[in-house]
């Protein structure tokens, strides 16, 4: 019953999206102007209906209604409740329903509160949002109905992949999806502005909070995903340049560029066409990412060719949405002038430079991710991994980070390096000190070397915009910028330190034996069986000592899940201010010795701390912008009130 209710809500939401599209389009014409009035309420109701449908899916998962095919395929009655709920979006159909829900809610939210832009632009924007949504509703209802029933009803479900039964991962997809789909709002704004030819600072100010919000979620999502891979996969890696990871990185790169170019447009009325283009590209990257992850093409091009229904559907959606947007852009590009001019050495100049660098990195990641698929389609298999992405990415990242250190200190329009040179003496000296220190230590590979030196210089330079400012009166967006840029330096330091200074130890030891990894002494006390709600495990008790301080106990596990039967290693992490001890229990050898994998990873935690700082910077900037918007709004209302009372 609940499942049918959810399906009905989904159909209704799709119908309302169609209505929203038609009413929005007619609302733009003179004859249909009256229709325009219904667009906003329709958008709100559409979002709510999608939410109702999604809640129905969560309900059938929570009660493990095995007559629903999706539940039977992906859930199990013995799972903890939180993973039953998370299982609702841990599969193809559920995640696509989450996608349309977020998209509908975002559209409804825009319809509800965004009142700064001229109404025709808003109508075109909401019609654009409805158009994209409609494609994904069709995809769900035609090719991946999440509420399909199953007969006969099985006695038990198949269970959820144990790797996914982890709190961090349970909430990772929704976070990323909020980011992916939040960018659809930027896309729709870009379409709306193109249709009505209203590209200017007001448009950028209206779009910016949505991009910022989506970008914050993407940043948190990527950071959390990286940490999950780090501790859950049990080999201590935190970024693999895996296509699935790249799929989340590409929208982030585009959104980062968009965020900065929208700031230039808002402040200086420049970079109009470029901002629109990035708005289209950012959401296109979200859709390409979804296509890569959801079509099955990554497992094998041939698997995709055998069962192409879903993949082709998404591919068609991609072609229609991206192709349509680019065509519109080409038609209107001539009428959208670039706006105000500026010199190379200026705030805008630095921002443009870094926009181009970000776009180039995006190009490399996109091409390196897609090329193996193209090659496979042509009959040859190649792999593209870290040895390609790291140096090729660095080609553009290094100049970008240098400009990032200087850019925030420059004035708008026109400036001279001589003026800011003084302030960069200390960062440059810090960098030089870093070079000397690393040469003394020796044996550090080229890229981590550059990374460490840049990180130290950038960390200092990123704080410079706060100099000569009254810290209490510094606007929140400036704080946000400083913290986010500092976060980049922190994360970069963590990444470089991890790859330069990690120590690995693989040993087989008997209980009672001691081994050493970096500054740690590790003693295996015993290995015991333990049990959880839906797994059993072997748990090792390790007594570890850091440079002669008191011993601490850490307990890595090797877990066996029942449904589906699968082995996972639960690494155990000991965090110190200067790094993490990472231990994993492997198998038992025949002579009673146990495999241990141990790593000492100096400053590795800075990677994710940096990621969170970047996101925090975004949050502060967002709060600052929204506050000043509200203040302006209230002031305008007051003036209107006063005029009215004076008129009387």
């Amino acid at each position: 019953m609940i499942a049918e209710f959810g399906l009905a809500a989904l159909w209704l939401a799709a119908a309302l999206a169609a209505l929203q599209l038609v009413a929005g389009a007619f609302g733009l014409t003179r004859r249909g102007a009256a229709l325009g009035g219904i667009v906003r309420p329709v958008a709100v109701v559409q979002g709510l209906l999608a939410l109702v449908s999604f809640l129905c899916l969560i309900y059938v998962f929570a009660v493990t209604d095995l007559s629903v095919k999706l539940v039977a395929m992906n859930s199990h009655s013995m799972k903890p409740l939180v993973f039953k709920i998370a299982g609702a979006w841990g599969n193809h159909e559920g995640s696509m329903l989450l996608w349309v829900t977020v998209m509908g809610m975002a559209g409804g939210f825009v319809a509800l509160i965004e009142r700064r832009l001229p109404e025709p632009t808003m109508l075109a924007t909401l019609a654009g949002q409805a158009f994209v949504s409609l494609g994904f509703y069709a995809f769900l209802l035609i090719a991946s109905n999440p509420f399909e029933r199953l007969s006969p009803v099985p006695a038990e479900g198949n269970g959820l992949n144990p790797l996914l039964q982890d709190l961090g991962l349970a909430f990772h997809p929704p976070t990323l999806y909020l980011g992916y789909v939040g960018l659809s709002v930027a896309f729709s704004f870009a379409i709306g502005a193109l249709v009505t030819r209203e590209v200017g600072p007001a448009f950028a100010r209206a779009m910016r909070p949505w991009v910022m919000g989506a970008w914050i979620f993407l940043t948190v999502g990527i950071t959390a995903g990286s940490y999950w891979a780090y501790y859950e996969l049990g080999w201590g890696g935190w970024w693999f340049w895996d296509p699935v990871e790249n799929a989340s990185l590409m929208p982030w790169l585009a959104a980062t560029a968009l965020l900065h170019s929208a700031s230039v447009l808002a402040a200086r009325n420049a970079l109009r066409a470029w901002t629109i283009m990035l708005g289209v590209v950012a959401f296109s990257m979200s859709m390409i990412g979804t296509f890569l992850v959801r079509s099955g093409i990554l497992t094998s091009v041939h698997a995709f060719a055998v069962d192409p229904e879903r993949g082709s559907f998404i591919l068609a959606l991609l072609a229609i949405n991206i192709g349509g947007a680019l065509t519109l852009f080409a038609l209107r590009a001539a009428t959208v002038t670039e706006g105000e001019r500026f010199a190379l050495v200026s705030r805008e100049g630095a921002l443009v430079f870094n926009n181009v660098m970000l776009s180039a990195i995006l190009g490399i990641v996109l091409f390196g991710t897609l090329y193996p698929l193209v090659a496979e389609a042509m009959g040859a298999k190649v792999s593209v991994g870290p040895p390609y992405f790291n140096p090729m990415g660095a080609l553009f990242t290094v100049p970008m980070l240098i400009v990032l250190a200087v850019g925030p200190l420059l004035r708008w329009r026109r400036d001279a390096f001589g003026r800011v040179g003084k302030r960069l003496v200390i960062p440059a000296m810090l960098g030089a000190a870093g070079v000397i220190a690393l040469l003394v230590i020796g044996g550090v590979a080229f890229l981590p070397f550059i990374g460490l030196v840049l990180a130290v210089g950038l960390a200092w330079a990123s704080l410079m915009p706060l100099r000569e400012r009254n810290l209490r009166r510094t606007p929140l967006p400036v704080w946000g910028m400083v913290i986010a840029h500092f976060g980049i330096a922190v994360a970069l330091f963590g990444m470089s330190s991890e790859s330069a200074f990690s120590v690995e130890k693989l040993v087989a030891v008997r209980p009672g034996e001691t081994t050493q990894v970096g500054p740690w002494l590790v003693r295996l006390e015993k290995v015991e069986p333990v049990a959880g709600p839906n797994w059993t495990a072997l748990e090792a008790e390790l007594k570890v000592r850091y440079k002669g301080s008191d011993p601490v106990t850490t307990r890595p596990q090797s877990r066996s899940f029942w449904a589906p039967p699968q082995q996972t290693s639960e690494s155990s992490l000991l965090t110190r201010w200067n790094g993490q001890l990472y231990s994993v229990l492997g198998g038992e050898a025949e002579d009673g010795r146990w495999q241990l994998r141990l790593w000492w990873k100096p400053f590795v935690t800075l990677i994710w701390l940096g990621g969170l700082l970047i996101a925090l910077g975004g949050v502060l900037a967002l709060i600052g912008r929204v506050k000043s918007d509200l203040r302006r709004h209230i002031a305008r209302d007051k003036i209107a009130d006063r005029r009215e009372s004076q008129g009387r």
Partner: protein
Amino acid sequence: MSSLPVSRLPVSRLIVVIVAALGLLSVVPAMAQEEQSTAPYAYRQLEDPAKEEKAQSLMETLRCLQCQGQSIADSDAPIAGSMRSLVRERIAAGEDPEAIRSWLIERYGDYVSYAPQLTSLTWPLFAVPAFLILLAVLLLRRRFRRGGEQ
């Protein structure tokens, strides 16, 4: 009343232990069979840290052919284990890492190496960054030459 939870505790713990024991009985042999690669250097490092580091950085750039998107350095699959052992043994024998890579590519194809080699098939991978640099320079020059004139 108050003694009830105390007396319950051991029982529930006993159940946990029994369940754990049952679970382990059924799982451990299976694990021993499918998980461990028995190759000598699958889970053993080389004595010489410099050689081990060489082997490690090579292993990180070789694909585990049975896994999905994992290098042989971070996989428990048997084939990854035997390939790790092969790499370590050859490095220990003094072979050059790139020679080992070429040998593996010859045997398993380009797919095994995460570092694409420059061939007639992969040249676009190297042309694209060069093209992007050119494009970036042209874009920035066009942009700022006009801006500078003003």
